[in-house]
């Protein structure tokens, strides 16, 4: 995974425990949960501005 590789290269304070904590089995769901509000809100704004 690109993000994983970048963190390994750049993150001097991350240790294995932190990496494991970040990239656990819930990572994909959390990423969706993080991004969904921005995408859904932006989609709603797009719909609203078309009707104004």
């Amino acid at each position, binding site marked *: 995974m690109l993000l994983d590789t970048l963190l390994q290269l750049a993150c001097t304070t*991350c240790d294995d*425990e932190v990496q494991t*904590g970040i990239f656990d089995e819930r990572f994909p769901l959390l990423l969706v*949960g993080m991004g969904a509000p921005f995408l859904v809100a932006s989609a709603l*704004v797009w719909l609203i*501005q078309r009707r*104004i």
Partner: protein
Amino acid sequence: MEHRTWTFGPLVAAGAVLGIGMGGFVDGIVLHQILQWHEMISAWRPPLTLLDKSVNMFWDGLFHAFTWTTTAVGLGLLWRAKGRPDVPHSGKAFLGSLLLGWGIFNVVEGVIDHHLLNVHNVKEISEHQTAWNLGFLAVSAGLLAIGWALIQRGRRDFGSAAPLPQPPDLVAAHR
């Protein structure tokens, strides 16, 4: 004098996307960092140890990366809107759009993150987490309503079919 309708869509889109980004920053800066009421995954992983704090900080960082990107997109939209002569220079509509975007984002974020996924609660250390979560939605709905009302006032100020300024008027308006 040419009569055409003003186009509010680009201004509302720019303001509302900026509102999403800036509203996200308010959440991240005020609630996550200054007040420390919650962190991004503080319900799933309470930040009680340095390890859990670090994991939460990673997700807070991603959250801020999303807010920064959204704000940058909003600035781009505003730049484009500003160059269009048919887009009104309405402060009320712009302010309303900012509030509208902030309110929409908070409502969507509240529903998804607080209620559906329950990754965090508005006030994590509280006996009334649900009340805080519902209060957050209520305040956000208020922002949304005020924003919508301001946009409508801005539209009324300009009128739906008011004459567009001609080039000499545009020059005068920028003096």
